[in-house]
Structures are given as C-alpha cells and as structure tokens.
C-alpha cells in the first residue's frame, strides 16, 4: 500500500526544502490513497488538522488538548504539527475556555474548543447561552462568533458519574446555537469541517462511545467533497440521512443511538419487517423534510435517544412529526429513550440505555393488526 519514496535528497544526502516538501506530499498521497479503515477519532483529528492547514485563524484549545492530545486523543499531534500558539492547553476552567473563545472570535479567530466531558461543560453554560448563542443577535449581525464547541457526550462506555450525560437538549433549546452530532466515521470528518466553516457557533456533540468505531473511509474523497462544496457554496449541514432504507416503519435516531437503531433494523429484517433508519445528523437546523418524507412513506415511527425523554430532543421530534404527518400515521409515534433518572452507575447503565430489544418492543406496539 505504501511504496517507498526515494528522493534525490536521500540519494545526495542533501535535504533541500523543496525536495523535503515533495517527499512529504508524496508520502501523504501514498498514505491516503483510497479508502482505509479509520476510527471516528481519526476522522475528527484529520478534520481539525485539515482546517488548521487551510486557515491560520483556526485555533484549538481546551484541557489536556496539547501535548497529551486530549483525554480521547482527538487533538493528537496538533500541537506538534502546528505549534503551541495554534493548539494549546488552558487553565482548567470551562467558562474561561468558552469566554476566551468569544473574545478570540470577536477578534478574527475561529476557535475550536474542547469540553473534556459533557457534564464538565456546565460551568460554561452561562457563556454559551448568554454570549455564544446571542452575540450575533444582540449586535444585529455585526459580530459573528465562528466557534466550534466540541462536546464528547452520552454514555455506553462504563463511565463514572458526570462522564456520560446526554446534554444535547440544553443546547438545542437555546436559540442561536447549531447542534450537530455525527454517527458515522465519515460524518465525523464532514461535520467538523462544516462546523469550523460555519460563521455561526456550533455545538459538536461527539458520541464518545463511537470514537473508536471504525469504517472504511476515503479521506481524500472527503477532502475533495469538502472542497467541491466550498466552491459551490453547498454543504451537508442541516440534512438528515437515510442510514438504512425500509418500508414498514421509521426509526429516527441520532448520534450514539444510530448504530443501535441499525442493529434493531437488522434484527427486524430477520423477522420479515423492513425498518427505515433516519440519522438526524443535525439537531439544529432540523431536517423536517427528510424525516417527514420517511414517516409519510412508512406510516409508523419510533424515536430513539439516549437522553431522558422528558422535555427533550426526542419529544421535539415526536411533536414535529405528529404536526406534519398526522394523517399518514397508522399508530401513535413511540419513543425509546433514557429513563428520567440521573445517568446511572456503570453496572446499571445497560438498564437505562435504549437497546435493540426495547426498540423492537416499541416497533411491535405500532398497531400492526388491521
């Protein structure tokens, strides 16, 4: 796969800058030709590196993101490649991180900041809600805040308390924030690039249990797609995806729940039931069109989310679909969500998390008998 690259500098023992660059380019090309098995962590890491190469105003900072490369290694190597002025550790204070990002964005930078864990982001809540989300509005568009706040979120990793919260509803409820959540490796790259490109602040909710999920991904292809989108002024932002086509009912999921929904659909297929799986991708803006097209086609829907169901993104989705698809529905929309309890301790989390069986039970309840 990776041919040996011999350069004239190696032959001559005389390294010129031009030949070194050529060698680096050749090596990079050799390394990344065609699809490779990579993790979502690698996709996110590559997205940041590519954005930092493309634009010197893109800065990465947060807790442990420098030499360590982040507790999940998502920023691995960025300090080494771009130096400490482009990727650096801050004092351990989340409000400080977000507040400083606001000022940097006001002064020409595009900060990409990491909140180490979902529940560790709460000290920054005031900065996010009162400034990040509102600055554009308060100044009648004079000040844009192109900030990406990366939040490793949700559970399923056996984490102790305060490490597994599904906090997306807090942000989705706040006017002025875009909220994206990738469920696939390719979307990890795509969404982070689009988030960095966005002139509006983006909460990038990264399902931490999917960081080490792998997929065959063509990074060069994703780069080309990003470049083509930039040229055309288009993007995948705000669009849901049909993760698995089906005809009998629609499973609507996002982030960490998408693989669970896909597993449920595979199990249902063995029982002769064809389930379509919609990956929401972007909670804000929300793609009513794709979601409703699917539900109108199947006439049945189950919404799946790890977060507590009460007053949540899942309840919003049910409300929206019901308002728009009422006359197409053969049964009330069901939800399979986390219970309305604080996120449980590791030995109890499997009772809490939406699983395949609970999803299939909900599907069974969709009034199939005529």
């Amino acid at each position, binding site marked *: 796969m990776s041919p040996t690259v011999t350069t004239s500098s190696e032959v001559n023992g005389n390294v010129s800058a031009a030949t070194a660059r050529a060698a680096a380019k050749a090596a990079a090309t050799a390394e990344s030709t065609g699809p490779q098995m990579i993790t979502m962590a690698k996709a996110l890491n590559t997205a940041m590196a590519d954005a930092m190469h493309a634009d010197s105003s893109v800065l990465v900072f947060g807790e442990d993101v420098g030499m360590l490369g982040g507790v999940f290694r998502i920023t691995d190597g960025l300090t080494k490649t771009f130096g400490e002025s482009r990727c650096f550790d801050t004092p351990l204070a989340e409000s400080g991180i977000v507040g*400083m990002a606001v*000022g940097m964005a006001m002064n020409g930078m595009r900060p990409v900041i990491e909140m180490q864990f979902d529940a560790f982001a709460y000290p920054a809540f005031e900065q996010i809600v009162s400034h990040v989300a509102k600055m554009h509005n308060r100044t*009648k568009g004079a000040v844009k805040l192109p900030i990406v706040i990366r939040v490793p979120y949700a559970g399923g990793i056996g984490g102790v308390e305060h490490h597994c919260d599904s906090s997306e509803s807090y942000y989705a409820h706040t006017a002025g924030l875009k909220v994206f959540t990738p469920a696939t490796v390719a979307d990890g790259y795509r969404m982070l690039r689009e988030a960095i490109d966005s002139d509006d602040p983006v909460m990038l909710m990264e399902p931490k249990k999917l960081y080490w999920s792998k997929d065959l991904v063509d990074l060069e292809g994703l780069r080309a797609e990003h470049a083509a989108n930039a040229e055309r002024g288009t993007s995948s932002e705000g669009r849901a995806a049909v993760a698995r086509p089906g005809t009998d009912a629609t499973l609507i999921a996002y982030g960490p729940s998408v693989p669970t929904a896909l597993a449920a659909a595979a199990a249902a297929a063995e029982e002769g039931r064809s389930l379509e799986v919609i990956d929401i991708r972007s909670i804000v803006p929300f793609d009513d069109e794709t979601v409703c097209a699917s539900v109108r086609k199947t006439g049945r829907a189950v919404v799946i989310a790890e977060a507590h169901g009460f007053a949540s993104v899942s309840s919003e989705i049910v409300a929206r679909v019901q308002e728009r698809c009422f006359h197409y529905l053969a049964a009330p929309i069901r939800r399979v969500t986390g219970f309305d309890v604080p996120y449980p301790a590791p030995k109890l989390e499997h009772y809490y998390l939406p699983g395949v069986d609970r999803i299939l039970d909900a599907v069974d309840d969709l009034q199939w008998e005529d």
Partner: protein
Amino acid sequence: MTISADHTALGQDAPEQPAENRVTEGAAAEAVRKFGITVEDYMLPARHQIQMVDQDGTLNPHTEQGAQPGHEYALPGDAELLAAYEQLVVGRRVNDQNSALVRQGRMAVYPSSHGQEACQVAAALSLADGDWIFPTYRDSVAVMARGVDPVQTMTLFRGDWHSGYDPTKHKVGIQCTPLTTQLLHAVGVAHAAKLRGEDTVVLAMCGDGATSEGDFHEALNFAAVFHLPVVFFVQNNQYAISVPLAHQSVAPSLAHKAVGYGMAGERVDGNDVVALLAVLGRAVKLAREGSGPLLVEAHTYRMQAHTNADDATRYRQDSEVAQWVARDPLKRMQTYLTDRGLLDDDGAARIAEKAEQVATQLREGLGEDVPVDPQDLFRYVFSTPTPQLKEQSALLADELARDAGAGASSDTEAAK
C-alpha cells in the same frame, strides 16, 4: 503595580530574599531582576490608595501622590487634564439627562454612573485608538467617551434592540449585563491580538460585587497564565445593588486579589481623575510593553440608586451619601484647574455648551419613536435563517398582514 519604565532600581537597598521564596519565572521575576524590588513590592498595591488631587481640589505634596518605591506616578499633562475635565462635565450631563429621560418614560431603565464619572472618563482616555474596552451596563459614559454615538449607546436602554453600536468598529464590547462574563471576552481579544503580534491593550471593566463571580477569577487567571495585555479595572462603588462590599469580600482590598494571580495590583482614588489617568495610563503602558495583565481598583461611590427601579434609602444612610458628595470628582477638578489658571469662565462656558449639545442629542434621539421591524426577530439569529425560522417568520408576517387587513376593513366600516 510597582514596575515602570521610569522606575529607579533600588540596587543595594533591595532586601535579599530567602532562596525558597524566590520566584524564578514570569512577570514578577522579571520585575525583581530588572528593578531590584521584591516580588511583594511588584504585586502588592501601595499602602494607601493613590491620590493626587484631594477632595478640596488641592494637589497633594509629591510624597503623598504615590511615591512609594515602585508606585511612583507622574502628574498627567495639562492638555490631558483639560480634555478629561471636559469629558467629566459631559459625562455628568449625560447621566443626569438619561435619568430624566427614564422619569419621562422615554427609556426603560438607566443605571447611572453619577459620581463615578472620573473612572468612566479615565478608562476611556487611557487607551490608544487600536485598543479595546469591555464595559458593563453602568459604563455608558465610558462607551461614549470612546467615541460611540450617544444615541446608539443608549439603544440598549431605549428598548428597541439589545445594542445599538458595532463593537468591532469601535473596539468597544457590547455593554455587558451578566457580571464579569465580559472580562473573559477581553482576555480573548487580547489573546488573539497577541498571537497576531499586535500591540493592542484591552481594558476590562467590572464592579466590586462582580469580583465575587467565578468568571472574575477565571479571567484574571487566564490573562496571567497567557501573559496578556489586559488591564482589569474594578470600580468599587461600595454597593452591589443593596449589598455592601463587606458582604462580598474580606480581602485587604480588591487590588490585593492580584497577588493570587501573580499580577500587579494598585488602588486609586476613584473620584480623582488626575490619579486615575496616572495609574491607568501607566497600567496601559506597562501592559503594552509586555508586563502581562494588571488589576486596578478605584474607590468611588454610586451616588444614586442602582437604577430607577431601586430605592437606595432602604439600605444606606444619608450621612454616608453626604460624605461622598464632598468628594465629588467634578468639583475638585474644577477647583484644581481653576486654581492652576487652566480653566476660566470662558473655558467653563464652552465645556458646559458642549455638554448641553450632547444632552440635546440624547433628548432628540431618544424622544424619536423609532419604528421596529418585527422581522428583525428572525434576521439575526443565524447568518442564514434555518427552515424553522423561515416558517416562523412567515407565520408572523401572515399574522401581521391579517391584522393590517382587519384594521383596514374596520377603518372602512367606520368610514361608512
């Protein structure tokens, strides 16, 4: 702050420190090496607040002006003092005019800085053109003194939008209501400027009550750790709405808090614009020269209630207010400048005329019934409205069109 370009090294007189107490890195260590002063001398405020002109308008003897080693301040020049006095008079007129406009119902609310004008003016005048300032809701006079149009400044309080000026154009942050959150924005602006190699200084304002907030701590610490050119300026006006300073902090002074962050602190008479210009001027100069952040605490007094909705008689005595009336920043400056022969009746009349022009501008601008566009609700949430906002915008447009239609038909009915 105890280090300046003008500081004379103490040389042999500098007390030798025990090895374990020596600071080997950072701004303090640099000061110790450069000026032969102790770390404590560098970071601790002077023993008394810096005052140059006393409440009767008399210039203090040089030894009392702030002449402690490391705390020496030069008297600002005459032109600077006259410019400051003009802004003081304008600021006072602005405060009183705005309070009157609230009473007349032309503004929703106005947190007056009556009594704090010296702090407002000195903060604005100590900065260079390319510098930034981050004000609070009580700092409208400082915002105007930085060149923002008075009527645009008052938009927040007039109630037709949250802010009336472009912060990036004026390098004036949006007037901030959530306490001390803006200090971190100041840190970010300074950090971005530093990364680009610009010599921008950022002055970040807050009050005494605000020093209890977590973001005060985070901002000072971030600025110190990243060695950023930020001057934190605390106007200690003694009250956070009704709660006196003693309930916020038992630190020797708010300026002493600087030590905990490894930065220099200083306290100054907040009703003495001469001392304020000297102290803030040097803080800005030091920050620009690379000292890292500094903390300046000004002792002043909120002469009026928190806002028109507040009743200050419930929590403070008239006798206390009377003491501060005697320390008024305008009166002492007028006396000082008159005694120095820098201000005569003609000069005073010219300045009064200027203040009256601004008051007229405010009366006219805020008396205008500015039409609001309901579609503005949706225009500035995102750079491009989401499909959901487009739907809601259409809903409101339809509602308004039907209302207009109903209005027109009822007019027709009435005409029949």
